[in-house]
């Protein structure tokens, strides 16, 4: 599609005037008068048996209406939380995840009781009076501990902590390694992260008994999924449940999970007969909302002397937390694009899920793709170093160059020009000059590092992304109506057909395509009606600039508005139904594969180990761009989240108690405006062939590319000291320890 007046234009987001003036409507902004406030009583231990729950004092507290425990919910909620089972088939006893703990708790933050009180303060006060007697057990809080022989198990009575152990592969890996001149091996840590959407989760739910109806406002990325799961759990028909996601203050994957609180609040509303509200506090969020990453990669890369990559072996350990979460399969999806931008057919990927006594992990911005990119981009740098090659040269040598390309698993990459993106990024960064400067500064004892990452991702399977604007741009353009006369509604199961929600950078690719196809259906019908009204044959009617007219007589035209009006009147062609509407369920026939190249420059203080970001260049290709302003914004945000992982953020648990050591935002370091580098964002445009817009997703691009660009830069800076690898986050103390050991 040609870039035209509206698609591809930098149009201001229509959701913004409300949001900049304090008129957003997030769930906590709803303050219904007759509502009970819920407070969840959560286990403070990593692993414990519950010996007794005493509600005597709490029940007597002012304002308390009800306190429920597991027994009460058994009457309302059937079954258990849905868990990914695709990888657990070979386990003799798949791990169930109850909505609420009854006898045993398996992570700090697991719910054991729910207090309902008239006031928020009263709910909090009563919660502190609930007496739970726990018998703490020895927790396992990390992968190494959990896979060790004789390790305690994360659940009582399970044989070991292995949730899954599956290997996929393609080509002849054995032969590839036999043929290799060099093999590099590296263990790479993907530390556990908090997603930290700035708005925590929040719920208002109201059950009305006579109609058996349930209405829920939830800060979620997936309202239709929530509705489906609530139906399965409560037995209330789907048609009687309405789930509304109003303004959502960020998600990054953390709101695609259907959480225990959603089931329990719904059930509590049914049990109490009153509306229930719950707003997650930040300290609560850090244990109750799923975590991201928490993986270890053991990689082996085989290559020829000339830098040609031959084979790639990966073992991925995924710390699943205490339960295998709803979308936990995303957590191992690194396998799908393990070989990244490189034409590498001999790949073996083993993924091992490991249960621990920690908050369950699930998709976090990029979900599998940052991890895959990190591993292969680290691997290729290590090979380059082993061979004394420039990291640019080895990448160019191995890029996948012919498209469509079938990868080792049989997935088809639609389009790409990886060299073009890399070349552009290097030009902007002035790469050869940077290398010269690096050489000079090294002589003065300064450690400058240049890091590259070439990323690809697969999308088509994200909140705050500007849908209301981009979707409207597509509709207005296709329908030939003014942008201002379009309205976009999403997030309410009551007035939109089933959709999978926003995640995996799928909104534009899938939702945008559906908008385009619906708009085209509307135009087709309108054209038939116009032909009827203009007394012409369908094929003689031209649609241009929002007007329908008979070829050759543009002055006698009907506008889309006139046609829309006529569609509800009596003068319709025979057999045509009233109205001018269309619904499209778009399931893309194939995936789209955006890509790009990032360059990062850092300086490391050799004395303190402090890493300073100097410059960051991002060249991304997401096919045709609907709104460049929104695309750029998505890249900035993603890059900074990746920088957060590379240099600042890390969830730490206490090994003895299984409690968080990073329990507030004081210990868990989200970067501020002062920690970001100078940015350049640019684009190349290689349209997709798998969707009618030619667009590819962009929401996760920055995160996928940036953590590794930063880490490769830090490793490059440390090269003169003989340091090959550093794990994330590359904090000053970690860098300093490496420097010190290297000096020994």
């Amino acid at each position: 599609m040609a870039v035209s007046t509206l698609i591809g234009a930098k149009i201001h987001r229509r959701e913004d005037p409300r949001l900049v003036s304090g008129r957003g409507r997030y769930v906590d902004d709803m303050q219904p008068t007759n509502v009970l406030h819920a407070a969840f009583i959560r286990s403070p231990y990593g692993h414990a048996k519950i010996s007794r729950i005493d509600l005597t004092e709490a029940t007597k507290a002012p304002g308390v209406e009800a306190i429920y425990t597991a027994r009460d919910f058994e009457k309302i909620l059937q079954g258990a939380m849905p868990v990914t089972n695709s990888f657990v088939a070979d386990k003799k006893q798949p791990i169930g995840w109850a909505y609420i703990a009854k006898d045993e708790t398996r992570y700090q933050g697991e719910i054991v009781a729910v207090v309902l009180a008239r006031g928020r303060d009263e709910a909090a006060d009563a919660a502190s009076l609930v007496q739970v007697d726990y018998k703490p057990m020895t927790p396992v809080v990390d992968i190494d501990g959990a896979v060790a022989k004789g390790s305690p198990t994360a659940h009582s009575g399970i044989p070991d902590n292995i949730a899954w152990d599956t290997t996929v592969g393609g080509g002849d890996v054995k032969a590839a390694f036999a043929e290799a001149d060099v093999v590099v091996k590296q263990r790479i840590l993907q530390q556990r992260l908090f997603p930290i959407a700035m708005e925590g989760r929040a719920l208002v739910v109201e059950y009305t008994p006579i109609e058996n109806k349930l209405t829920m406002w939830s800060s979620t990325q997936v309202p239709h999924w929530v509705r489906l799961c609530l139906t399965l759990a409560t037995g209330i028909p789907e048609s009687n449940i309405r789930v509304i996601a109003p303004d959502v203050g960020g998600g990054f994957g953390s709101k695609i999970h259907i959480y225990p609180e959603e089931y329990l609040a719904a059930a509590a509303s049914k049990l109490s007969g009153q509306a229930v509200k719950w707003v997650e506090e930040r300290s609560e969020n850090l244990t109750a909302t799923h975590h991201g990453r928490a993986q270890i990669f053991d990689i082996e890369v085989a290559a020829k002397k000339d830098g040609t990559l031959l084979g790639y072996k990966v073992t991925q350990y995924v710390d699943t937390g205490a339960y295998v979460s709803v979308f936990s399969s995303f957590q191992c999806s690194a396998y799908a694009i393990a070989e990244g931008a490189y034409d590498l057919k001999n790949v073996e990927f083993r993924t091992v899920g490991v249960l621990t006594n920690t908050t369950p992990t699930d998709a976090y911005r990029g979900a599998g793709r940052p991890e895959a990119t990190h591993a292969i981009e680290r691997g290729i740098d290590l090979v380059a170093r082993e061979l004394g090659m420039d990291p640019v040269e080895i990448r160019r040598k191995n890029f996948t160059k012919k498209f469509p390309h079938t990868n080792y698993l049989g997935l088809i990459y639609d389009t790409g020009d990886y060299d073009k993106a890399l070349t552009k990024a290097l030009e902007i960064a002035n790469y050869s000059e940077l290398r010269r400067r690096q050489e000079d500064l090294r002589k003065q004892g300064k450690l400058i590092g240049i890091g590259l990452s070439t990323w690809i991702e697969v999308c088509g399977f994200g909140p705050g992304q500007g849908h209301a604007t981009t979707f409207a741009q597509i509709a207005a353009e296709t329908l030939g109506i003014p942008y201002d006369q379009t309205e976009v509604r999403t997030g309410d199961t009551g007035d939109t057909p089933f959709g999978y929600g926003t995640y995996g950078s799928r909104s534009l690719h899938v939702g945008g395509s559906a908008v385009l196809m619906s708009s085209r259906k509307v135009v087709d019908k309108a054209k038939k009606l116009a032909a009827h009204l203009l007394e012409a044959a369908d094929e003689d009617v031209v649609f241009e600039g929002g007007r329908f007219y008979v070829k050759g007589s543009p002055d006698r035209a009907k506008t889309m508005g006139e046609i829309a009006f006529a569609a509800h009147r009596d003068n319709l062609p025979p057999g045509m139904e009233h109205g001018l509407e269309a619904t499209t369920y778009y399931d893309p026939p194939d995936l789209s594969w955006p890509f790009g190249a990032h360059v990062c420059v850092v300086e490391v203080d050799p004395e303190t180990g402090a890493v300073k970001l100097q410059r960051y260049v991002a060249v991304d290709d997401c096919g045709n761009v609907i709104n460049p302003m929104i695309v750029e914004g998505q890249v900035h945000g993603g890059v900074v989240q990746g920088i957060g992982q590379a240099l600042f953020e890390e969830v730490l648990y206490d090994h003895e108690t299984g409690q968080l050591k990073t329990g507030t935002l004081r210990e868990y370091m989200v970067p501020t405006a002062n920690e970001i580098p100078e940015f350049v964002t640019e684009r190349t445009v290689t349209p997709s062939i798998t969707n009618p817009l030619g667009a590819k997703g962009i929401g996760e691009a920055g995160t996928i590319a940036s953590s590794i660009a930063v880490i490769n830069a830090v490793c490059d800076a440390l090269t003169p000291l003989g340091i090959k690898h550093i794990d994330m986050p590359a904090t000053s103390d970690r860098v300093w320890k490496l420097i010190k050991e290297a000096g020994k």
Partner: protein
Amino acid sequence: MSHKVVTTVNGRRYEHEVEPRLLLVHHLRDNLGLTGTHIGCDTTQCGACTILLDGQAVKSCNLFAVQAEGRSLTTIEGMAKDGQLHPIQQAFWDEHGLQCGYCTPGFIMAAAYLLAENPNPTEDDIRRGFEGNLCRCTGYVNIIKAVQTAARTMGGAEAKPATQAAERRA
């Protein structure tokens, strides 16, 4: 025991009886219905609850409502005047300085303070001015641009209160 608290918020006088433990941010949101001020953490890191207290940017989750007795407050709802967005709000819109919008009111109020104190800030001044505000969507790039744009459109028009503030402190 509850305490009477009289405040002027966005030019309007409010009188309430409040419990001492009621945080100012909850007072604004629950009692005054001014839900534009958000809560993003419980340890005073995120700055989503930033408001102006007698012209000074403060985090309203770190004050009790009783402490606002007799004070004059400005929240995000008080920024737009006569149906027109404040130049800072307009600049956030123009420069795509927000995505999910949750941290935005805090950033706009922090920016209002920053520009009142320093009408012509450098990029570094702006970054420093946002030490206490976290955003997870934008990567900050367009927020910084928005403040630069706002500084230009405001043309130092709000420089005066800054001078007064500086004198008051000297």
